[in-house]
């Protein structure tokens, strides 16, 4: 019985969130006295999969079926269920991503497993089996007891430190779930990727620069983008900004948008409504720049500058360039 870890790959690389998931899985495997096996989905290379040894993975299963390159709910669910049966896995760990949630919820029914999503810490196994997960849109946490013999855990991004044991490699095995055309019935007709400013995806980002209504208009977003580019950060925005179409909705961070938990979140001209804080308050360090010293966001911040974003942002960009 091994712990099965679902590893998402894109363009040959293992996603950062999946390195965290692999590290989570191998640490739980150690707690349970077993090993961790990964099943890779998406476009992967054998060399990058072998490097999962650095995250403590012993073995990687990979099905080279070309139609698995893009996410297909039916096919991915069957692939992972088949791998879980082969490995006799009682515990499956995946990312709390759009893929992980879609597949994990179907798997929980198919494998009669209990499921916890949005998990932020390693399980407690003294007596039962419980995990800490984020609830109330980032405003609180809950310790949740998982019942039954089989369990599935979806790990929130940036909540687990990825392991890096230099030089360790995993054994990569080819694996076939004998997928048929019927398993690809819900395959996408088309996949459209966004143009990302600076090429950093918001959900995966370590650093985020975000703008609110204080930016006064979409024509001023170059100030946000310049700082983001200098830092290698992703850009984001508050709900009012995406509501008036200054920025696309996929940049909207908050209670009804994306929840992010980067190492650094820089909020520019955002007052800090409770719904926005819910989306960012698990960030490690929060910086707030606002000309209103009474802006509620300052109460949730680690560093703050009371000043005009139009004056402060170019100075910050300049300082980053000088530092590099």
């Amino acid at each position, binding site marked *: 019985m091994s712990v099965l870890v679902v590893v998402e790959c894109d363009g040959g690389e293992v996603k950062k969130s999946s390195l965290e998931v692999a590290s989570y899985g191998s640490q739980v495997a150690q707690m349970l006295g077993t090993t961790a096996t990964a099943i890779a989905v998406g476009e992967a290379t054998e060399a990058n999969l072998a490097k999962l040894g650095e995250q403590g993975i012993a073995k990687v299963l990979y099905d080279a079926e070309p139609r698995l390159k893009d996410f297909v709910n039916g096919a991915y669910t069957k692939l992972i269920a088949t791998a879980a049966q082969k490995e006799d896995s009682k515990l499956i760990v995946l990312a709390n991503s759009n893929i992980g949630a879609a597949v994990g*919820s*179907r798997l929980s029914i198919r494998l009669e497993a209990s499921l916890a999503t949005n998990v932020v810490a390693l399980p407690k196994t003294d007596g039962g089996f419980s995990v800490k997960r984020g609830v109330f849109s980032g405003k*609180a*946490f809950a310790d949740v007891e998982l019942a039954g013999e089989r369990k599935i855990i979806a790990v929130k991004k940036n909540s687990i430190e990825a392991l890096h044991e230099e030089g360790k490699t995993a054994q990569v095995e080819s694996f076939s779930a004998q997928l048929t055309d019927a398993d690809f019935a819900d395959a996408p007709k088309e*996949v459209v990727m966004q143009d990302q400013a600076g090429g950093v995806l918001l959900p995966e980002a370590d650093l985020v620069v975000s703008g609110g209504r204080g930016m006064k208009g979409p024509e001023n977003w170059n100030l946000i983008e310049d700082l983001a580019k200098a830092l290698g950060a992703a850009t984001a925005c508050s709900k009012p900004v995406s509501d008036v179409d200054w920025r696309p909705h996929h940049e909207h961070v908050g209670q009804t948008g994306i929840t992010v938990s980067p190492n650094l979140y820089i909020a520019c001209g955002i007052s800090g409504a409770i719904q926005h804080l819910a989306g960012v308050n698990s960030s*490690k360090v929060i910086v707030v720049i606002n000309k209103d010293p009474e802006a509620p966001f300052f109460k949730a911040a680690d560093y703050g*500058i009371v000043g005009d974003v139009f004056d402060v942002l170019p100075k910050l960009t300049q300082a980053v360039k000088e530092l590099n």
Partner: protein
Amino acid sequence: MKFLVCISNVPDTTTKITFTPDNKAFNKAGVQFVINPWDEYALTRAIELKEAQGSGTVTVLNVGEADTEPNIRKALAIGADDAIRINAHPKDAFFVAKQIASVAKEGGYDVILMGKESIDYNGFQVHGMVGELLGIPTVAPAMKLDMSGNTATLEREIEGGKEIVEVNAPFVASCQQPMCEPRIPNMRGIMTARTKPLKVVEPTADAPRTEVDTFALPPAKQGVKLIAAENAGELIKLLRNEAKVI
């Protein structure tokens, strides 16, 4: 077409979250409950599609005790035709999914819609569980939904982009913005909602698979360190040398 829209009853988005003294339950005192904001996209889009088709029904389903009825009536006022309340506390995602699947099986619905997740327990699980229980496809999270005859075209959000997916009814979709502009009830809707059918059904005997032991609030911040605007560059040095995040 027959639409089934699943709604949950959640604390208003401005709620300050607190718990009972033993940290075992959410403290409902003084809290205003609303239709889960994500579910509003599902509800409005179902009504729009029904109107575009010129026929069909939109049924609202909630798993909850009697105190959720004001929000069920609100959904009827927005434009749903009838409602079903499963008379039970929504114990966990699995329990709720079993209730929905049981209603869906009996009612023969073509399209089952719900929000991406509820803003209280943020499970993002029910859509997939219902799809798997019924053996039909799930598209989650969906940003766009159009119907042509029996075929739906959806945009599914993926990290960094979107997939265009086509599925035939019956199917499940979990909805999010920018699918539609959620409607609010008008006076006529509020008047007619009073007499629309609301059926109360007892739950199935399924047991939940997860249980909350305790709740906790995140640790409070230490307080903000202010840097003068003239010295803004100083912040970057602090972020590198003190916070060590860049």
